[in-house]
């Protein structure tokens, strides 16, 4: 058995030895409730399977929110530990992954606030949320299929840079809605803000994302 599937708890029963990362997402979603139910009953291998499945995505999430490697690592680890500790409290009325994302987002936000005390607030409307600055200024044609011109690692670097440059209030909403695919309501619940605030920040975040990518993808820009 590959090392990554060695059971955390040292037990000898395993629900699956198939690499979960290779499963189509529909199958991954279908067996998620079974894994959660088994983990709740104390099957540590089942919980490990969930960790294997989601650790990369949760790390990306905590990296995107904190923008800091050390904080992202700590936030990810604590998110999984808290998820395991509070597994009994997971009612199954949402996907386990959505629940896990909420925990990880909170862990990441807590660390971001510590690093930037008083610098941002998710609860209050941002001053820039008027209509005045909405109109995009940079209007240029992009090269056809610019994403194909970059190796995967290069594109990752570009996206990481672009996301990091967004204000936390915007990038958190963008990451939860568009990258983690939480619904508007789930994002609002996770952050403790209104649906209106989520929509407003998502609009600005998406426009800013376009504007920042424009500098890489416009015709004539170096790649």
């Amino acid at each position, binding site marked *: 058995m590959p090392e990554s599937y060695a059971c955390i708890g040292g037990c000898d029963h395993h629900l699956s030895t198939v690499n979960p990362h290779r499963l189509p997402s529909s199958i991954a979603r279908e067996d998620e409730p079974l894994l959660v139910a088994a983990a709740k009953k104390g099957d540590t291998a089942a919980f490990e399977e969930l960790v294997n499945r989601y650790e990369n995505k949760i790390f990306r999430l905590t990296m995107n929110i904190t923008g800091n490697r050390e904080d992202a690592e700590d936030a990810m680890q604590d998110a999984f530990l808290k998820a395991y500790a509070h597994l009994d409290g997971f009612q199954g009325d949402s996907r386990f992954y959505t629940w896990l994302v909420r925990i990880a987002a909170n862990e990441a936000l807590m660390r971001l606030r510590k690093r930037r005390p008083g610098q941002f607030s998710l609860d209050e409307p941002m001053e820039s949320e008027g209509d005045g600055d909405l109109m995009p200024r940079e209007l240029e044609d992009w090269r056809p299929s610019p994403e194909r011109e970059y190796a995967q690692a290069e594109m990752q670097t570009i996206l990481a840079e672009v996301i990091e440059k967004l204000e936390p209030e915007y990038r958190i909403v963008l990451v939860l809605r568009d990258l983690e695919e939480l619904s508007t309501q789930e994002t609002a619940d996770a952050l403790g803000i209104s649906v209106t605030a989520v929509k407003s920040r998502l609009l600005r975040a*998406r426009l800013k994302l376009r504007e920042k990518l424009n500098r890489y993808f416009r015709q004539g820009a170096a790649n």
Partner: protein
Amino acid sequence: MNCKGVIREISNYIDDELELAIRQELERHLEHCEDCTLILDQTRKSIEILCDSEPIPLPSELRTRLRTALREKLGNKRA
């Protein structure tokens, strides 16, 4: 609907969350406005590129650290 109105609703339009009448009004504007069409297409493309990005492979030392912490936690809970 003018350009400002389109931009204000562009995110809701992408998410298909507009009422029919407003959506139709927005689409009528798009038929003759190249700038708004360009912004819409590029915003959609930006979201698509973001969605298609692969998660970061976990550094091996972090994976080991996580496993160690979990093993300790799981051991405590079972004890």
